[in-house]
């Protein structure tokens, strides 16, 4: 756990639960030409960092190879309450996604049981093409639930 999260702060506790449970996040990154890029992603909270599996030839991977500053935000409530925004730095893991499975594969499978059913893939089949692991280290958390 990094110092970014204050465990005594109820807003942070709530944000942390959402970072563990929410299925969709929005990854904001910067294209090599300086324009912003936003993409919805599956993500996994792991050991104080956020893991995202990606295919190799995607815009977000190209962006992150160029610059690692990112945002990850979660959808708010319909009226705009319940905001969770993580600012952080992203790197691409040296290890392919499959190598991460011993430590978090079953938890990931459990989180995305429904999602994997929707895309009609097993986790193993997904990882055959989603080989890249983006690791986001949070630098700042912005959260309010009112």
């Amino acid at each position, binding site marked *: 756990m990094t110092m970014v999260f204050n465990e005594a702060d109820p807003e942070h506790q709530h944000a942390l639960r959402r970072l563990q449970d*929410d*299925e*969709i996040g*929005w990854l*904001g*990154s*910067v294209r090599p030409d*300086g*324009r*912003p*890029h*936003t*993409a*919805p992603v*599956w993500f996994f909270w792991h050991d104080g960092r956020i893991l995202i599996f990606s295919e190799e030839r995607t815009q977000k991977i190209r962006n992150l190879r160029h*610059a690692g*500053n*990112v*945002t990850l*935000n979660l*959808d*708010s409530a*319909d*009226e*705009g309450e319940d*905001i969770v*925004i993580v*600012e952080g730095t992203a790197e691409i893991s040296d290890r392919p996604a499959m190598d991460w499975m011993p430590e978090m594969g079953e938890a990931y499978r459990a989180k995305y049981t*429904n*999602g994997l059913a*929707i895309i009609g893939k097993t986790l193993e089949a997904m990882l055959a093409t989603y080989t890249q692991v983006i690791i986001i280290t949070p630098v700042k958390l912005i959260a309010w639930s009112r």
Partner: protein
Amino acid sequence: MAITFDQQNPAHQTALRKLESDQIAWLTTIRSGGRPHSVPVWFLWHDGELLVFSESETVKTRNVRGNANAVMNLHATPDGGEVVILDGTAAISDRDTAGWLATVGEAYERKYAGGLWGLGLTLEQMAAQYSAVIVFTPTKLSAW
């Protein structure tokens, strides 16, 4: 250059419906140091553009003045359906919010009646506080 919506594409029709009725969008801009910034905003879909009323000195208005490139996205469903992402450019309007209300005030008040009530602000009070108008012109629609 405005985006066009394909009448035959259900995702485009969903996007259009959500642009007209969703209460919250996310605006992503670039800070002067090159880092991205994302923030939830109220918006009004008007004449092919998105209007965002803002206090005049915020991170997003500073960013837009320095770099017009922006992305707006709407909420998806919890399992990732109904994705709507707009790439585009943003500019601060020469007209302030009060000036825009003559054109869009009625539509804005209809859309955000509940939200304004929640803030305890009349439309005019909101316009005085959120006096800057960010005009986002989409150049590309990604919807699925």
